[in-house]
């Protein structure tokens, strides 16, 4: 299982999914209309490291985090 966490204002409970890469995750999340804006503007981290690679492999126990636009200060 891979745990998916949605940070900040996304306000969605975590998901546990059987997926092997981010492309598969993308296909699943696209079916959720409430996430459509967040998929476009959020960055993605695997095990708390930001990634740009949609084909990066995911293993059992990994954590994927979605980070929407930020504004500290």
């Amino acid at each position, binding site marked *: 299982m891979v745990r998916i966490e949605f*940070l*900040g*204002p996304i306000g969605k409970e975590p998901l546990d999914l059987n997926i092997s890469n*981010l492309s598969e*995750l*993308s296909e699943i*999340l*696209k079916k959720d209309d409430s996430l459509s804006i967040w*998929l*476009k*503007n*959020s*960055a*993605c*981290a695997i095990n*708390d*490291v*930001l*990634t*740009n690679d*949609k084909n990066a492999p995911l293993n059992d126990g990994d954590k994927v*985090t*979605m*980070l*929407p*636009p*930020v*504004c*500290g*200060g």
Partner: protein
Amino acid sequence: MKMMTNIDYLELYDGHLPVETITNRWYDDFRLSNYGAIITFVGVVRDENNIDGLSFDIYEPILNSWFKSWQSKAKEKGAIVLMAHSRGDVLNHQSSYIAGVCSPKRRVALELIDEFVEDFKANAPIWKYDIINGKREYALDRSTQISGAGLLS
């Protein structure tokens, strides 16, 4: 209440920052370390757009690694960076953010504080909400997408 993280010099607080306490402590801690330049930037919540204040969410694991990379960058120049930030609600005219740089020479400190604060705004995993009539409203129009955003779209 202050909570030191496992990353030296990064401090997170619930609610507004006790600015004098933090900046005085930084000064006392570092003036004896032979730094010739100690610069602090204090962010204060402004009364605008009918807000009562701001509220913040923080994702600490990535904030810690972001801060650690800045500490390494500062170290290459013989400097250190400092930061304090609020979690939760901070009312108008209170402080939610302090950044600091200590370096042997002023030029490094002046340049580093500028880069450090700008990169913080663009990349630190912190989310800001306006507090209006007691409710939190995400400040999307003032927020910046992190590099690589849209990967899953």
